[in-house]
């Protein structure tokens, strides 16, 4: 199989690392070669963070580059806009419809762009949801990232059962149920 590329972008602290662990787990269990790459350290302090996931028969480089992503998962609108050029022309864009102001916007040095999703779609399939609101409905605002993962999972070739199984193996035991519920909420949206 030709190597598939997934990118997760967001703001430091939004839980991109857990999402990538689940992705790594499912690809390993399905027998693929897989590489993931992520950012730690200073950039994580509320900065713009990126995680790359690549899987296939044999994966060499661990990063996804401009124009290569089959799926771009954005945990925040502005970050979707920052990285949309990494998406293939026919790639799928999943956006958590949430706004987090970066410091230049907070200090008034820059403006948060309006109509981001319309601006960047460029004829592509865009799926967006206010996953934080949905997560609050489910009872835990933190699981919004797993809802978004569920939305993205529809565009990858694994069964719902495979996903739920990997989630159960990856997240802490007492949060298995809420995370599986969150995944299904995204998967069936």
């Amino acid at each position, binding site marked *: 199989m030709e190597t598939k590329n997934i990118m997760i972008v967001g703001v430091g602290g939004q839980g991109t690392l857990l999402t990538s*662990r689940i992705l790594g787990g499912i690809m390993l269990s399905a027998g693929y070669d897989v590489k993931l790459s992520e950012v730690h350290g200073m950039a994580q302090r509320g900065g713009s963070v990126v995680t790359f996931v690549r899987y296939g028969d044999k994966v*060499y480089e*661990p*990063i996804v580059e401009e124009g290569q992503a089959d799926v771009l998962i954005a945990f925040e609108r502005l970050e979707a806009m920052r990285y949309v050029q990494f998406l293939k022309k026919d790639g799928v864009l999943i956006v958590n419809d949430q706004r987090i102001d970066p410091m*230049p916007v907070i200090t008034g040095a820059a403006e948060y762009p309006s109509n981001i999703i319309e601006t960047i779609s460029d004829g592509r399939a865009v799926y967006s949801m206010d996953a934080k609101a949905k997560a609050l409905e489910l009872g835990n605002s933190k699981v919004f990232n797993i809802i978004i993962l569920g939305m993205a999972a529809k565009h990858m070739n694994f069964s719902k059962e495979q996903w739920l199984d990997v989630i159960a193996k990856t997240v802490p035991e007492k949060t298995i149920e809420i995370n599986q519920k969150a995944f299904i909420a995204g998967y069936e949206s």
Partner: protein
Amino acid sequence: MEKIVMLGNEAIARGAYEAGVKVSAAYPGTPSTEISENLVKYDEVYCEWSPNEKVACEVAIGASMTGVRSLCCMKHVGLNVASDPLYSFSYIGVNGGMVLVVADDPGIYSSQNEQDTRMVARAAMVPVIEPSDSQEAKDFIKEAFDLSEKYDTPIIVRTTTRLAHSQGIVTLEERKNIEDKPYEKNIAKNVMMPAQAKARHIFVEKRLKDMAADAEFMSINRLEMNDTKIGFITSGIAYQYVKEVFPKASVLKLGLVNPIPDKMVRDFAAKVDKLYIFEELEPVIELQVKAMGIECIGKELFTVQGEYSANMLRRVLKNEEVKNPSFDVPQRPPILCPGCPHRSVYTALKKLKLHAAGDIGCYTLGALAPLGVIDTAVCMGSSISTLHGMEKARGKEFIKDWVAVIGDSTFLHTGLNSLMNMVYNKATGTVCILDNSITGMTGHQDHAATGKTLKGDATYAVDLVELCKALGVENVRVVSSFDQDELTKVIKEEVAKDAVSVVICKAPCALLKGQIFPNKCVALPEKCKKCGACLKPGCPALTKNADGSVSIDATMCNGCGLCKQMCKFDAIDMVKRA
């Protein structure tokens, strides 16, 4: 054998475990920190956080001298701190194998410079091994220990951010049962005085020549002969980019990059029409190849700056430019977290119109808008000594509107000597120790003043107040980092004194477990005068609404109350956390 997906750093820890390592010492530093955090999970290995890399290196040296395998991990700039023991230990050589894992940061994701560890290793005459993915990270560590003992040398395993923080599939193996080697007193080898060192220097030169000659038989160097029109000599993560873009080219993949395998390189160069050297940062392999009189192309085409990629290789060698339309969007630089005590200290320093000589940690972010308090940041521990130098150059009046700011972990790393020096040499500056009771930036590692070891065991906690007093500082004050009135009052008083002062600004890191304030901040729009004072500290939980009033994001707010202290109109309230 079990296969799992592992972070590069996790694989290194696993490799050390499987290699039979018994002692490991390190100081945290991105991108190397997770090695120790994973290695400590194996009960067979003694693992510690040392106060700095020099100490860590010497701990590993001592362990090696007694005949056990030892590991020492650090980031690239940490090797500068550890270079004193390293240069001499290179002469001494090992008893039990000794490996230093040094993590470089091409692209400068979380560092103060982009130095190439391989250059330091060349100067110290220490062999360097470079893995290119998680599996190799594990395998090469084991190989490094065997080579260390075979050639009587410490070995550096060089990683980079991209390798350390990428995950890949790793096949696990059992831990080797390595017997402790006997300890024997050996002055000629283990005591570096002029006469002994002269003899060992001869040995060190021969050691590198022997390794270069033997290197073609080492499994970590690999020849992949394909189409011979172009050939690459490459190593580490750069190898992956070559394979991605030129799957049919011939490749000499070096695991050992210092010294390089003499005969293997000559044979390979003779077989290919055009030879490229593709390596991140400095031309370490290239200079060695060129010194052999072999024609090759390297840094004429490939930059010494930043991180490489497959697209970079496509652009340079295939003239393929990938350019999708992109948008001009506001930057999102890293920021201090909501509820961070550093923000409050910087707010006070800003009110007092003070300059700060800065240091290395989360709090270096105090250089950026809207705080903008820090004027300088050089390296770990430098804040105190640079302030001292300023005073000696320009007199005590010059530093009357200055302080030094340094974190608790950084203070214990290398700030201590600088403070001692201030007292000894009759300085008058003020040092603010930003004590958040943890090593913050690297993700919460304990240190000598937290009362806990890497293993999580309770231990003696250094008393910073008594420590500063013991160094001769008469003015030591402790203030809560969140008390704006007290902070401004105390710092103002201390800066005015003609003596060395230490102000310990104390409040735990907002991200520490259990560190949740009982209340949250809530904006009261009816009382808001839209003056914007609460926005000045730059807390990301606060947003200015279109009408000039302020909203506070309930999930982001940590409840530190700094914004409430900034408001003169009681337009921010504290409510009990739900």
